[in-house]
């Protein structure tokens, strides 16, 4: 059976990396109503979430 944690983990790693890259390369990018570098923080959290899913899946297969 396909372990869903692998494709979803990969998906969020890639998605997070793209958004994080925008946050790093264009740190001055802002939407009208916010002063934060939104891409940086959301990219980081998506990478963390993707990594977490992959970690769970690796631990499950090692058993």
């Amino acid at each position: 059976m396909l372990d869903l944690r692998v494709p979803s983990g990969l998906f969020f790693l890639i998605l997070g990396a793209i958004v994080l890259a925008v946050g790093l390369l264009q740190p001055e990018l802002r939407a009208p109503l916010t002063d934060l570098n939104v891409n940086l923080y959301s990219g980081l959290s998506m990478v963390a979430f993707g990594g977490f899913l992959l970690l769970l899946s690796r631990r499950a297969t090692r058993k």
Partner: protein
Amino acid sequence: MKLAAVDYVILAVYFAFVIGIGWMLRKRMSTSGDFLLSGRSIPVWITSLAFIAANLGAQELIGMAASGAKYGIMTAHFYWVGAIPAIVFMGIFMMPFYYGSKARSVPEYLKLRFDEKTRGFNALTFAVMTVFSSGISMYALGLLLHLVLGWDFNMSVLASAAIVLAYTYLGGLTSAIYNEVLQFFLIVAGFAPLAILSCQRAGGWAGIVSRLPANMTHSWHYMGSASENPMGVEIFGMVAGLGFVLSFGYWCTNFLVVQRAMAAENMSAARRTPLIGAIPKMFLPFIVILPGIAAVALAQMTGAGGAHLYDLPTKLVDGVVKPDYDQVLTTLMSKFYPAGLLGVGLTGLMASFMSGMAGNVTAFNTVFTYDIYQSYIKKDAPDSHYLMVGKMTTVVGVLLSIGAAYVATMYNNIMDLLQLVFGFVNAPLFGTFLLGMFWKRSTGHGAFWGLLSGTSAAFLTWATTVAEGKGGIFGNLHTFPSTMAQNFWIAIMAFVTCIVITSLVSLMTTPRPDREMEGLVYGLTNIRHDEGVSWYQRPATLAIIVLLLVIALNFWFA
């Protein structure tokens, strides 16, 4: 709203993944049971999230932000009153019969418990309903993308339908369920930042409370009389109509959601599916409703130069400018999301649309293949034949949904009318299941006539009452303060009529012998207690935790 190249890249990555998941699952589809029922083998955390995501369509996301802006925190009643209690009831009391009876669908349960005509009535109305509801949501999405991004309506509708078709055709229900989980994560990733940013900008919850009328920030305080709260609903109509009849009717008998739990790997997992799903469900209002409420507060705040931070979107209706709440979500996104995250938010919106549509299509093909085709058209074919029919039905279901979307573009009123009619059919259904599962004396004739008379009662209630100029085609016995109150009362009347007529007709007809109903009715079913399962994995423990949490939320925002 303008998209940058990076936003399109994100959208493309997402499309590649959903189709890729379907592609990886395609080899496992060797029987009709694999394709239509997932072979009852999916882990519980996946079925639980799919259970919630199948219901989280684009209309829900757009509609809940819209209602948040229109009615305030009372909108959360649709979750805390109108969903959680029903979900808990379904997991604890109804799932043992669905899963234990080995029925492959909700209509098939009706066949096993009652008779052929009750199943036929339910299967047909359900099949028509799923096609039209996925068509309506496709229409809503196409319209929104056209309005917000200037995309071509035809292209948006056809492209998204093609992607849904690709992954459901390849991997059947398993693919739909797996993608629903991915879509659920993406919806959270795409919209949680909006809730956080908009709420923070509006001064936090305290800042919102200080700027909004009090009846928009309290969910229970103003429920005493219909005239005091923005929804125009009084407490009894809300709790009995929405919290009891409508929500139990939806969550406990709609095959679209029940199917997700039925795909679980064993009885205990099937019962835990709705209960575990209830936990993210009760926190969804913070993601889907809160931005709408914050939008109203932002619209009253001024920035540098005295300009409003945000203006509620408007539309022209018969020459009058009215607020267009359906655009609240997308306009907020453009105010808070820069290129990059905007792509994630938009992909989340597409994901919600796809999960809603795939949910409808996978429920449609199962009910059509097993309850209509195998029952009335071709009975004793080999399983490979039904696998082929299931796959063909998937294609036909998507095509019919596209057709329904175009019907909606031509006759907007017809869609309103259809939704009204479906409401009439759905309202009494929970009464039939309640009696069927918990009263062994109820009979097939009772169930059928109860359903028909309940549906008629719903129609008559609508035809003799008026709300916001709607209904009352046979006269006006009562005027409701809002169509929502009218809907709740239609459901109450239909449910009561269904219960009374089913009971009366059942008592006048011959009961079925007990031995034919083993596993189908309470009292004749040996519900296995969860021996060997640790206490925290038992359905009852979970149910108590869920109920305590939801009570706490209600008090918090009372």
